[in-house]
């Protein structure tokens, strides 16, 4: 196996649920030694959520939610709510390059994982804190919350609706993922800075602020022109038609985006040049933007007659940007993802053969990332407490009995 980019870098990972684990997974698959600190006092809910439990047989090592976000890592148990547990956590931090945590500010304080706590333990550490709206500032810094609440706070869900309708939620827990590589980029810049200067620093990442940085059109329009509340649905400033259209079957859709006259001509030709499409009002991009609703109604009647994946292939072959709206079964079977090598298969000792999502980038000189299997609860206790922290087997056993390693 070729060298991995982050070999030699160690992460003391106190994070859980989604955003922290996604950050740590990038670091782990790229070769960092990520030591995930878990505790039976607050077990990662990815291990317990029934919606991801393999074949509905309960067990903390059987959960697809956990597996999808935590392969490549090592897992240890440590009870941070007692002083001996905290001391061991600090011992781990002393031997690490990164500390990662995503607790709400009051919980981080209670567990001894504030920036002041951590830098007192190791002055050149790069600490990554991820939270809803940042850990400094006013009252919202202390809120409990999860990803979608960040989108709500910064206007993303208000802008997500159908024009004139109520705010709607973007699929999944968008900001938990949106923040991940933004954090990874800046954290590695910080590590490089540490390598050059010996100085550590704190990355106080707010999911809300990452989303703001991605919604620049809304914020710039507000700051430049005072415009607020733009719900665009699928409308685009420059492209029309630009929408999702119904296809044959139940809840099947195709996305089509026409950027210029030649693509419009290609689309008309594929439709067999129906009379409506020859309307002079639709002849240029400005006219199509102005009459987008009318075009959408006609286009939807045409798309209804086709199977969505087949129609997307035909449109793309004709030079029109189009894509099928894929459900989970179709995504799982998608030929492009297969050939590109997105999913990977493991043969896990408890759940058997399962398909997991891989990382969404490829590096020519790093052909195989670290896809070691997701760790069982406490799988690396002996290795880390014995090997890295130098405790004897007897000490480890007694710490387990005392529910310190727990």
């Amino acid at each position, binding site marked *: 196996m070729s060298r991995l980019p982050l070999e030699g870098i160690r992460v003391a990972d106190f994070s859980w649920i989604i955003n922290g684990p996604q950050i740590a997974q990038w670091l782990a698959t790229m070769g960092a030694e990520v030591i995930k600190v878990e505790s039976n006092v607050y077990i990662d809910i990815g291990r317990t959520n029934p919606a991801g439990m393999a074949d509905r047989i309960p067990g903390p090592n059987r959960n697809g939610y956990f597996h999808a976000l935590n392969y490549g890592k090592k897992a240890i148990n440590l009870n941070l709510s007692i002083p001996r547990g905290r001391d061991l956590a600090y011992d781990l931090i002393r031997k690490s390059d990164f500390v990662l945590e995503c607790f709400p500010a009051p919980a981080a304080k209670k567990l001894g994982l504030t920036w002041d706590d951590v830098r007192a333990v190791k002055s050149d550490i790069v600490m990554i804190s991820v939270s809803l709206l940042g850990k400094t500032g006013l009252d919202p810094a202390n809120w409990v919350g999860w990803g979608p*609440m960040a989108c709500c706070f910064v206007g993303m869900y208000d802008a997500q609706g159908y024009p004139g309708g109520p705010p709607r939620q973007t*699929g999944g827990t968008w900001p938990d993922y949106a923040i991940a590589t933004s954090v990874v980029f800046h954290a590695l810049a910080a590590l*490089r800075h540490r390598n050059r200067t010996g100085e550590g620093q704190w990355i106080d990442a707010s999911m809300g602020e990452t989303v*703001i940085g991605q*919604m620049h059109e809304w914020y710039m329009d507000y700051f430049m022109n005072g415009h607020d509340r733009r719900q665009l649905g699928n409308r685009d400033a420059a492209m029309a038609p630009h929408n999702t259209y119904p296809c044959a079957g139940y809840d099947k859709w195709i996305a089509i985006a026409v950027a210029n006259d030649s693509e419009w001509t290609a689309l008309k030709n594929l439709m067999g040049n129906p009379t409506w499409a020859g309307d002079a009002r639709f002849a240029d991009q400005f006219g199509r933007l102005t009459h987008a609703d009318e075009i959408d109604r006609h286009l939807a009647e045409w798309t209804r007659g086709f199977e969505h994946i087949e129609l997307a292939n035909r449109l793309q072959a004709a030079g029109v940007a189009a894509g099928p709206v894929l459900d*989970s079964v179709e995504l799982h079977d998608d030929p492009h993802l297969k050939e590109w090598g997105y999913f990977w298969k493991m043969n896990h000792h408890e759940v058997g053969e399962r398909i997991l999502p891989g990382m969404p980038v490829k590096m020519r000189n790093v052909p195989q990332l670290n896809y070691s299997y997701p760790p069982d609860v406490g799988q690396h206790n002996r290795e880390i407490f014995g090997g890295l922290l130098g405790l004897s087997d007897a000490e480890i056993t007694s710490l387990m009995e005392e529910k310190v390693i727990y």
Partner: protein
Amino acid sequence: MSARPTQALDDLKVLEFAEMLSGPMCGKMFAGMGAQVIKIESPNGGDPIRRHPPFAGGEPHPEKSGSYLYLNTGKHSLTLNPTTPSGAEIFRRLAADADILIENHPPGLMASLGLGYDALNALNPRLIMVSISAFGQAGPYRDWKGADLIEFAMSLTGYNTPTMVADVERENPLRAPGHAAEMMGAANAAAAAMFALFNRDATGRGDWLDVPCWQAVVNTAKLEMAPLTYLRSPFSRERAKSSGGMEPLPCKDGYVYTLWAADAHWVALKKLLGDPPELDSELFNDLAGRHQYDDALRPMIREHLLKYDTDYLVREGQRLGLTIGPVYTVGQAANHPHLRARDAFVTIDHPIAGRFEYPRALVQMTGTPVSSSRAPLLGEHNGAILARLGYSLEDQQALRAAGVI
């Protein structure tokens, strides 16, 4: 002795041959960490996003596009046409001296210009070439035309947007606001370039990175995929079949967002709403029950929320330990004292567009904070960059006359 660096990447040279959203956002992230970023723009009008709204003052102008101004802070602009032999030569000289090249052209285009990875690697083995695309550099969709809408819609996250659909016929899938697929690809590209940089620091060898925007969004649907592969249970976007789905809920003066999955949260929510007797049923006491009877439960919760205003619900709810927050418009957020206290926005002067605020940073850092200086005018740095490469004023005039710069 040189001063202590305050910008983490101020020793890096980045060449950005990219336009619109993904590539420029990636370049902006490097510029924010202090890298010197040269943005190559078409001599024929520059980055096409200069023609995209919103414009400062509303009037279309190539130096007043809000998207251009935001996505290109801190960069230098060189107009260059690399499809001409002289233009390609200038490109090669810049690439020979660069640490990172960011491009987001259709796969194969760089190679067709003689500027593919193999050619550039022969010139500069330390170069890290970051290729951002819609679907990736290989596979059946490699040559498909992309667009933010397409990349987002094809991901399972796109199928699931908006969530909690009541009428599948009328509620068509929507893309996320803000070109989310392109932004996700940009951040993945920036992170991947840093991985390659750490690898280069150890091996001396550059790399070629394949960063697709579609796969970037597919990667946000991990939890929606797991039930299929772990329980053979396909994902549904329908309200009736959603397990524990959530959505903004109306209150007296706006909307709030909350969830009542955990038992402790359920108890807190009941308390917040004044412990209404109809919610005090043992049918609702556990997650399974609340899920099973969601049809009955949700309308009751909605009715009670309408009695209270946002500030009360959020303040009291948070005090009770409930996960609850406000649903703001962009304007409300832009003026919120918390974001103001964190300096989430920065005022930047621009000689043509004017002076106004911008979002400041994707993440906040204590030691090497993200810096923001204005976006360049089209071709603003032509003279300085070409002079550094050894082109005389006469050469530059000839290049301009030939349409190369």
